[in-house]
């Protein structure tokens, strides 16, 4: 019984600490080429053009806005990868799908410098 209690307490602490870690984690550098995405409508990504939800860069807003900060990883990954996978399944040029380093490499934008 004591073991279960200890495990529960550890789990609760870890969950709380995880949120702090996500908020404080530096974003990885990302390679993104605007020209490769010129077929898409601007508002597909730049939703703030029509819904007035932010005026800064994508990363800065999603990293610092407390309402979305904890979901930054899933929001960006789901958004980018879903579109890339759909295109790949249709046999179209898709860009990276799953391999982390194809987007997150040293030549990419140093998004952790955003303040």
């Amino acid at each position, binding site marked *: 019984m004591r073991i279960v209690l200890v495990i529960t307490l550890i789990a609760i602490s870890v969950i709380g600490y995880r949120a702090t870690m996500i908020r404080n984690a530096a974003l*990885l550098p990302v390679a993104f080429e605007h020209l490769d995405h010129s077929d898409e409508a601007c508002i597909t990504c730049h939703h703030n053009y029509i819904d007035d939800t932010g005026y800064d860069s994508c990363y800065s807003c999603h990293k610092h806005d407390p309402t979305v900060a904890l979901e930054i990883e899933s929001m960006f990954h789901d958004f980018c990868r879903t579109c890339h996978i759909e295109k790949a*399944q249709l046999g179209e040029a898709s860009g*990276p799908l799953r391999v982390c380093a194809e987007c997150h490499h040293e030549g990419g934008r140093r998004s952790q410098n955003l303040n």
Partner: protein
Amino acid sequence: MTTESTARPSDGSVRTPSVPGEYQLPVHFGVVVLCTITLPLVLWFIYPKAPQNGWGWDLLMGTGMLGAGMMLALPLVAPRVWVYYGGDAQALRSLLNLHRDVNYAVLVLVLIHIVGLVVIDRTTIEYLKLSAPLSMLAATVASLLLLVITLTSRYRTALRLRYPSWHAWHVGMSVLAMTFMAFHIVDAGYYVNSPVKKAVFIVLVAGPSLVTFGLSRWHRKFGSATWRGLDSRSQPVLQLPATRGFSVRLVVLLGVFWLLWMICFSIPDGGSRGDAQVTLCRASECE
């Protein structure tokens, strides 16, 4: 694997004497175990097929999927359940060895999956941190649980763990490990990427555990009037070598099977990602 009969009694059934150093499993039971191991891999290739990510990456993902499949088969080869259903001591001993060996194989495959991904793509180390997405965190917890389960089972007497409490923890941690593993695969949603595939996978995960749990309950309720599915004295059996290196050979055999499958799978098709598309995505020109 060979099906061997050494004596045929008057009722027509095949009898095989217990031979030390061999696993003896009824053929139909062996088929069920093998299907449980390979079905997660089969799901990968069913429509809608996930696009490729390069040979090395896909191979390591397949290694993980194979490990998951073997993990699903572990409850099926838990001797504790089958002890109620006939089978001689040697058959049950074989089952215990198989349970242990398949578990070692799962550990090896999971280790290859994790270390291999970090080696070919250092960025994946981010998924081993506490800030990783929940699906990746679940995989880390499942792997750690698997390690704890293995160590506490291997060194149970040395750790002075009493059997009843060890068994309760063993079952509990196993269920948790499989749940986290299933969440990892379903939530990642790349290879198991449609509602139908996800439903089938969940059935695959829950099925073997529920079957073994149900069989043990069935016995408690109905006593000896039960299915004698593991009685190797009255059925054709698979005879497998029970040497120490069997788990390694099992992994190598399934690895070769997987490699051949991957080679077929890696033949470029319309949905694959071309290298030219990657080179277009240059960071230096990013604004």
